[in-house]
């Protein structure tokens, strides 16, 4: 049950996308988000969507899995769409005479509003899909490696990059372990007749204590053990450490880099020549 949380989980298959340098994938995601906001019309979005579709196909992650991530933010998407349909009336520059389709007090639905909210929905869906593709195709460990490597320049201003990356990777590493543990403890308490999923709010909060207490204790115990284990291996922090897996830029990354550049160029060109949503 707890493992059904699919948003942001690694999908373990081997593919072109999985093998890319994590740094490139992080940069790709950032550039992609920028491109989504640079794109000012449906052609620009279509270019972005095509690139993402291509990436999904190359990654061997099933579409069902990808859409599950979108389902997680469905409420947000619908909320945005509804808000825009009712409150956006069109930009005077592009829509000099917004065609009003329906009006009631302060609510006004215009053609421009509908077009714009469709535009926003597509943008949002692409954004979420691309972010989840990053976590589907990159293990938490290489993700933190990538972030650490990208943040390296911050070491110049004494920012504890290595420590931050360590904290992140420990947290990521322990999420599944603690989830397993939670399930085990819940089962043990259910076997003793605990009703974990029924009753009013007060009852439910009380019902959580038999799960939270052992879980907290176990997390503390694990933290203690991990600390001891790190001490026993003479862990001293970042300065003199080397990497087991060195990040290297390969021909694959180069191809993707060029693709990314082409996509951004395309979006910019389309923005300049075509302008607003059509």
């Amino acid at each position, binding site marked *: 049950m707890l*493992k059904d949380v699919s948003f942001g989980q690694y*999908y*373990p*298959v081997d593919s072109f996308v999985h093998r890319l340098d994590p740094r490139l994938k992080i940069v790709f995601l950032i550039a992609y988000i920028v491109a989504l906001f640079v794109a000012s019309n449906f052609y620009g979005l279509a270019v972005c969507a095509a690139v993402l579709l291509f990436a999904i196909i190359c990654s061997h992650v099933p579409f069902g899995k990808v859409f599950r991530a979108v389902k997680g933010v469905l409420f947000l998407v619908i909320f945005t769409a509804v808000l825009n349909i009712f409150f956006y009336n069109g930009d005077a520059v592009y829509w000099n005479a917004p065609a009003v389709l329906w009006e009631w007090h302060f609510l006004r639905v215009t053609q421009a509003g509908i077009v714009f909210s469709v535009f926003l929905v597509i943008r949002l869906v692409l954004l979420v899909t691309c972010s989840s593709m990053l976590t589907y195709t990159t293990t938490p460990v290489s993700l933190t490696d990538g972030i650490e490597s990208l943040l390296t320049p911050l070491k110049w201003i004494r920012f504890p990059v290595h420590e931050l990356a360590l904290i992140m990777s420990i947290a990521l590493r322990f999420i599944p372990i603690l989830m397993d543990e939670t399930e*085990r*403890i819940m*089962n*043990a*308490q*259910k*076997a*003793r*007749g*605990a*009703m974990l999923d029924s009753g009013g709010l007060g009852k439910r909060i009380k019902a959580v*204590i*038999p*799960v939270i*207490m*052992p879980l907290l*204790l*176990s997390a503390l115990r694990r933290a203690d053990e991990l600390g001891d284990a790190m001490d026993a291996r003479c862990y001293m922090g970042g300065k003199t450490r080397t990497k087991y897996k060195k990040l290297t830029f390969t021909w694959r990354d180069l191809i993707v880099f060029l693709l990314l550049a082409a996509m951004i160029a395309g979006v910019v060109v389309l923005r300049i020549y075509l302008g607003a949503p059509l």
Partner: protein
Amino acid sequence: MRIQAEHLSYVYNEKSPFAARALNDVTLTVEEGEFFGIIGHTGSGKSTFIQHLNGLIRIPSSLKKRKKYKSDTVLRVGDFDLASPKTDFRALRRSVGMVFQYPEYQLFAETVFDDVAFGYKNFAAEKPRKEELEDAVRSAIEMVGLDYAAVNDLSPFDLSGGQKRRAAIAGVIVTKPEVLVLDEPAAGLDPLGKQEIMQLLHRIHREWCKTVIIVSHDMDEISENCTRAAVFSEGTVKYVLPPAELFVHTDELRELGLDIPLTAKICEALRRRGIEISCDFTADDLVRKLLARREGIC
């Protein structure tokens, strides 16, 4: 209560890359009154099987229609039909007590008394009277060999390791379930602690719980204590036999990655030196037969 499982299969995280087949067509019957053992190496599906017995893992009722799940799957515990979605799981869990591996990690309350009382209160039809609750908790704590007056007011986290485990077991048997299932009850204890726990389980079996099922990967534990034992391997039941017969299959057991009991090893060593002894593989029996033999020779 008789426990009957037929063609029971289970896959974790089905239809995902993490899918793990844990049970594969398990058929097994445990009679009322048995002290039953389940043995197998790590990952052979023992824990998955026993979690079926009180409905913590359920036979998916909608999936039964699919042909992959053979519709001849049967799982009965006494009168409960666990393949039916209408089963009263609360009543089932009251009748089948389940002690998980390292049960001391499920302790949570402020005092030992409250922790042991947790299950009793949960399963009670209406709020139990104070004396009734106290009686039940007292007898459970005394049943597991702890001193009620000394521990009932302590925090469970102040107890020693062995005491914590006993307190956790008390928290399960407090409702006097008819069937008691224990997952590796002696894991992580020293030899004396192991022996004490096994004695404790025999006492519970005699006085409170008609049927006891223990999971273990220690052959000696199983051979010395159980009426019958099932050997699990890769999600299937390889053998179900009384211990004495089980250890006729020493070679097969070794192949399954299991150790054989010490007495069986001694008999093997004797056989290699040409001394043939057939015993039922309890230490007592072996000693008796060896003595009888020596008297015969001398």
